[in-house]
């Protein structure tokens, strides 16, 4: 690890600087222009993200030693490089989704600016080399997420969700900070690498370290939406604008995993030639495995009973956090690769699903599962794409989600965690229940009325009042879908299938980019 002082670090920090500058620019423009060029801001944001992504790209494939930037505050290794691109992608998709969103029409430039800063915060989380950095980065992400959730002006649900998020988040981050202070007290350092050294040298009894870890996991589990710290998730997801929900389900979750990996592997494990071992006497993989199982079951079983699509996706996102947590117990390069790979799969399929949900919600005005009823007859293209995302989320071939699960469970089996793999796979079967319920409502329900007579053009008017009462008014009430969202859904859908059939390049990218031992 090459340590660099502050000025020397800056040139390696270009993407982050771009994000920062872009955010400030957008916020200033927002003040200067006011509401006049509101439609422009998301595009400006996407442009900034694209620049940042380009700046981050050349380093992605670099092998070898990482760089410890800013007096070891920020670690720029393969892991951070891969996550940089990941979060830039998350930000770009969020902004693209928000660009055409009617919910967010009044949000103006601040939404774009905040998103750019959140992306910056998430990158800092992935690269944190120091507990202070970790805490600052995480609070940046948290605070801005609270704001984004509450960004629907005059919408009480949105405000309530934001408030709930703040309260839960405050408690969780307090617990985490307390845990950090324990670690500092035990080792006398805040630097993760130095902390790892101290622990390996036998700095502390296992019990206090374990307690500190539990406290830290409260905060990180909150970000990952892992049980038992998932309570906020359904309410917040339901109340937030759809674009923000999609963002929350992927971005902060992935950042939480990145930071957890960083802390656990750097400070609480020792590297061996082919992986890591938990520091002596600390059974944290078992603890995480128990958390993983609880998270999977709670997420999947609760999702079975949901009638609101956003709530359902919230529980589904909890379940996916469970699968990812299972990957954390592995302590092998294969495990890290599997997590990263899975996160990419989750990014594509989840954003796809949320874009369809957003389109449906705009059309029908409700987030209920009934809103998607008969989608096949109204918008066959969206319905088919949604089906692909659902297949992928369930983890069936030939979709990208299957490959993600395949790598994860293959790594688990290789690592000897057969029972965890079995429980994870059984959870996929449970998840089939609710994903296929969406598919059923979307594709099967409302196909009957084709048979009697072609009198009513409106699909099942009784069940679906939002389409219009008489069937005549329906076309006028149905807003035209923006070609942009259709195109993005299409691209994500095609990617889901293509990467499900041939994913070797991405795998190589993840493996090479991570440059693990």
């Amino acid at each position, binding site marked *: 690890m090459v340590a660099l002082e502050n000025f020397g670090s800056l040139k390696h920090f270009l993407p982050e600087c771009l994000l920062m500058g872009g955010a400030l620019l957008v916020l200033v423009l927002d003040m200067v222009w006011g509401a006049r060029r509101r439609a422009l801001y998301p595009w400006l944001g996407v442009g900034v993200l694209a620049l940042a992504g380009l700046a981050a790209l050349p380093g992605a494939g670099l092998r070898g030693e990482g760089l410890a930037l800013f007096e070891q505050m920020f670690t720029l290794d393969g892991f951070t490089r891969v996550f940089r691109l990941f979060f830039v992608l998350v930000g770009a998709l969020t902004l693209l989704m928000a660009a055409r969103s009617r919910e967010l029409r009044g949000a103006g430039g601040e939404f774009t600016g905040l998103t750019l800063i959140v992306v910056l915060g998430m990158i800092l989380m992935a690269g944190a080399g120091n507990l202070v950095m970790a805490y600052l980065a995480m609070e940046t992400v948290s605070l801005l997420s609270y704001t984004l959730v509450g960004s629907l002006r005059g919408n009480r649900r949105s405000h309530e969700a934001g408030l709930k998020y703040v309260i839960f988040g405050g408690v969780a981050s307090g617990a985490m900070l307390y845990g950090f202070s324990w670690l500092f007290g035990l080792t006398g350092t805040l630097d993760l690498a130095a902390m790892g050294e101290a622990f390996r040298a036998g700095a502390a009894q296992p019990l206090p370290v374990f307690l500190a870890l539990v406290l830290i996991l409260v905060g990180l589990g909150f970000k990952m939406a892992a049980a038992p710290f998932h309570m906020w998730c359904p309410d917040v997801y339901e109340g937030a604008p759809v674009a923000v929900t999609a963002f929350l389900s992927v971005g902060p979750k992935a950042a939480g995993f990145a930071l957890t990996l960083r802390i656990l592997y750097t400070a609480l494990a020792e590297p061996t030639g082919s992986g890591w071992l938990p520091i002596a006497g600390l059974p944290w993989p078992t603890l995480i495995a128990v958390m993983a199982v609880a998270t999977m079951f709670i997420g999947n079983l609760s999702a079975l009973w949901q009638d609101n699509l956003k709530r359902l996706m919230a529980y589904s996102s909890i379940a996916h956090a469970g699968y990812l947590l299972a990957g954390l117990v592995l302590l092998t390069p294969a495990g890290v690769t599997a997590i990263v790979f899975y996160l990419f799969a989750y990014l594509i399929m989840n954003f796809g699903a949320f874009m369809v949900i957003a389109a449906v919600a705009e059309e029908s005005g409700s987030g209920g599962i009934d809103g998607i009823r008969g989608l096949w007859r109204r918008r066959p293209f969206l319905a088919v794409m949604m089906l692909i995302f659902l297949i992928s989320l369930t983890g069936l071939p030939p979709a990208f989600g299957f490959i993600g699960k395949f790598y994860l469970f293959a790594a688990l089996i290789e690592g000897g965690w057969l029972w965890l793999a079995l429980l994870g796979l059984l959870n996929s079967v449970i998840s*089939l229940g609710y994903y296929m319920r969406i598919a059923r409502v979307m594709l099967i329900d409302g196909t009957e009325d084709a048979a009697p007579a072609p009198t009513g053009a409106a699909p099942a008017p009784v069940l679906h009042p939002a389409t219009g009462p008489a069937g005549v008014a329906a076309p006028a009430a149905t807003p035209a879908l923006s070609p942009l969202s259709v195109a993005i859904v299409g691209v994500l859908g095609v990617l889901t299938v293509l990467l499900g059939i041939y994913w070797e390049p991405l795998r190589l990218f993840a493996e090479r980019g991570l440059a693990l031992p």
Partner: protein
Amino acid sequence: MFLATIDNVLSWMIFFPLIGAAVILLLPAKRPNWIKGVGVAATLPPLWWAIELFAGFQRRFGGEPLKQFQYLEGPRPWIESFNINYTLGVDGISISMVLLTALICTIAVIASFGINRQLKAYFALFLLLDTGMMGVFCALDFFLFYVFWEIMLLPMYFLIGIWGGPNKIYAAIKFFLYTLFGSVFMLLAVIFLYFKAGKTFDMAEMMQGARGLAMTAQVLLWFAFYIAFAIKIPAFPFHTWLPDAHVEAPTAISVILAGVLLKMGTYGLLRVNYALLPEATAKLAWVLALIGMINIVYGALCAMAQSDLKKLVAYSSISHMGYVMLGMASLTPQGVNGAVLQMFNHGTITAMLFLLVGVLYDRAHHRQIDGFGGLANQVPVYTGITALAFFASLGLPGLSGFVSEVLVFMGGFRTFPLYTIVSATGIVITAAYLLWTLQRMFLGELNPKYATLTDMNRRELITLVPLGIIVIILGVWPLPVLDLIGDTLGFLVGHVNGAGAGLAGF
């Protein structure tokens, strides 16, 4: 080879229906005849190629494992980091199943002409299903096998769920959940084998690699695979999805389900459990025999208790798949040959039965056996073909079902005399319920409600007559199929017996 085949014929067989599906999606929805035409056109070339393969298949190869697989394609690298390859090939077992699949698919697509809503989606999904089934029987790479295996689930779910009967959603999701539950165990076992058997998904290499495994591991793997395949067969106690699925599915889909899909279970047992885990198979053959026996007797008794004709056929299907399991379990050449022959014969016979149920349902709009009576004079052709199918199903000598059942019992008796004797009562029960059904439906007074019932039309005859001819031919001259499968199975039986020498049943 006296018939010219194209290069990569297996790939063409698998993916030609998929091309057809893509074409159908591009057709205008207002042209039902075009859609149906493309549907048939997409299944005909695979049938032709299947016949060509059948004719050109080298039947004698002296039990050498390397020569078993013919028309090999690949291995072409697919995902190199995991050593996943695109490898296809057929041996005697696969080729008989490929032939059956091609035949049943063509017939089922013709039987689907009665479908009257959402034609595009129906035929596209049907052809996707065709692709999945063909793929399963041709894949020699386990990852590929698994992908094809799973690809079938989704079209089946929608085919039952959209075009099925009143209780279709329940039946469709039950089918899907059961099968996926089984697949989970298969996936787990496959990945486990991958790491333990030399990091390869190639089935032939896995055969070598699996030998070194400890017996406990082998037994666990065996059961994991068994659950996956038993659900598909369906073996007791995993059979409950089948009557539901059959009753709700449209006729053509019932035909596919009974004709081809169930065979995947027994095919999987032979291809995976027998070939990869011979020692565990030799040790656990009694489980197969026991479950086979339960399937035969319990399925037959359930069938007897049904008043719905389609449910009766569905339960008889469960019963007849029991013969396959019993024959396989015997580990004798006769028994295993009988089992595979029974797979083929059951495919053709049950396809006939379900088609016949569909014909009747189209006219009478119900399937209650007691509602009919005296149909023999009203619809003589229908009666004749039904009688043929029923007699074939109950194993009348001279029809194809007899040959395979005799072989199964001959083989079974040598290894598991007790189970075989109990199973033999299944024949009696089968004969009883089928004859009773014949009597209730066709003999006696004609129910005046059906005085206007019309006999079969040309399209229905096109679907049924070829199957009837096959049933009769294989009844008097089963050699074409037997010599197709003989050498392959001889090798497989030797493989298992060699591994489990001294481990006889009781």
